[in-house]
């Protein structure tokens, strides 16, 4: 994590998606947050207006999601929209809270032989872009745990 303020006036870290929470002060770990329906227990990535499983409109419980999960499935994307570098591993990772997250798997060559359904993966964050105001855009990614 970058330091909170290094004199670069107003320079901030901005999460690429709203369900990624960055630490408020230096050293805090970033994490994904979700919400849990207090009526039926369904869990979701990010915040929600109501529960799409049971239709309850009771307030949702805010939950902090684990940074470890397992690789549900993946595709290796070799052709994408203009300007998007390929190839890369586009994956769905299941987190223990019952939430799935769409993500890139990094740290392995993008080849099916390097990936196994169900393999343990862990989340990390990195700067992926600097916007026109000089803010750092931070993304989350996943990688295999200990090269397993």
């Amino acid at each position, binding site marked *: 994590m970058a330091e909170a303020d290094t004199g670069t006036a107003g320079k901030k870290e901005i999460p690429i998606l709203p369900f990624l929470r960055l630490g408020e002060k230096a050293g805090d770990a970033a994490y994904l947050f979700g919400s849990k329906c207090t009526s039926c227990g369904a869990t979701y990535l990010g915040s929600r207006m109501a529960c799409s499983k049971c239709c309850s409109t009771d307030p949702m419980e805010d939950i902090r999601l684990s940074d470890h999960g397992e690789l549900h499935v993946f595709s290796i994307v070799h052709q994408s929209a203009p300007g998007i570098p390929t190839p890369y591993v586009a994956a769905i990772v299941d987190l223990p809270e019952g939430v799935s997250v*769409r993500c890139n798997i990094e740290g392995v060559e993008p080849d099916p032989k390097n990936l196994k359904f169900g393999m343990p993966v862990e989340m990390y964050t990195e700067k992926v872009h600097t916007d026109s105001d000089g803010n750092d*855009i931070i993304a989350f990614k996943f990688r295999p745990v200990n090269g397993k």
Partner: protein
Amino acid sequence: MRDVAIVGVSMIKFGRYPEKQVHELGAQAALLALKDAGVTMKDIEIMTSGNLYQASAMVGQRILREIGQTGIPVINVANACATGSTAFREAYMSIGSGAYDTALAVGSEQMGKMGLLGGGGGGGGGGISPEGIVGSGLMPAVFGQAGAEHMRKYGTTQEHFAKIAVKNHKHSIHNPYAQYQVEMSLEDVMNARVIAWPNTLYMCCPTGDGAAAAVLMSMEKAKQYTTTPIKVAASVLTSDPWSQRDLTLPDVNTLTRNAAKEAYETAGIEPDDLDLVELHDCFATAELLHYENLGLCGEGEAGRMIDEGETTIGGRIPVAPSGGLLSKGHPLGATGVANICEVVWHLRGQAGDRQVEGAKVGLAHVIGLGSACTINVMQK
């Protein structure tokens, strides 16, 4: 709901028509369908028009400016890849409900080279798209992942998916309306460049332009116009119900299963009664999943089904005799109506060298990601 029949159908060859405007393609298909039905625009009481990329452009009314402005109600429909079939269903509902006796449904699309990469994962912070940084919401990856789920569950292989493409490309050589009519070997398909694993280039449908149309009437009225009305035995539309991963990896299975169950019940048939199926093979992986979703085989048996050639013309239940979206093309708004058109041609015995002999009952299935699923069952 009273009985509804299809009296006229048509499509234009899918491909690229950069010199035309989209409503001209639609008008061309509409005129052919009216002619096939033996009616004119003066006989049509309501029109539905499916178009996705120009959904705000009043394509239906623009079509009528070309072929006949009689002041009838026009409904413009957008529902992702199920756009055309949803327009068809609106026409069906208009008649089935008893409100109208004659309807025209048109699907048209002009995609240029944009294609299936449209409709990404939404905007991100700082004005940068998360696409390709935080996974992919684009169709090639989604349908790659959906195929991978079947691999994970049942040990299905990339070769199984490739065989689907081989079959559909083989069927296409007898379909003059198909964008591509090129037979390919398993090696050709497997060795083509990968678009999004496990789908290679020839396992992805091409993008293009096209149009298709259908004239529908109440069964009572249809009998005044034709001795071979094709009954719409069921016309079902579903959206995705809640499922565990749906918000992350669009669930293309559950809503198809729900639609199939309702369609079979309404039509009073079993999957075994079907003589042919046109389904939404936007990618080879998708077709294999839908064998099970539509109940054409048992759970986990789709790989065996393609291995044993059961879905080839001449097999137990021919799927995509038209060549499917993989060869015929997939101009989004036109696709659903074209699938219905193909089924009607088979039931009438007009499908030429790709005819499924003796076809009496056919099913047309479309799925639009996001998600919408239509199933129409047609009966001779």
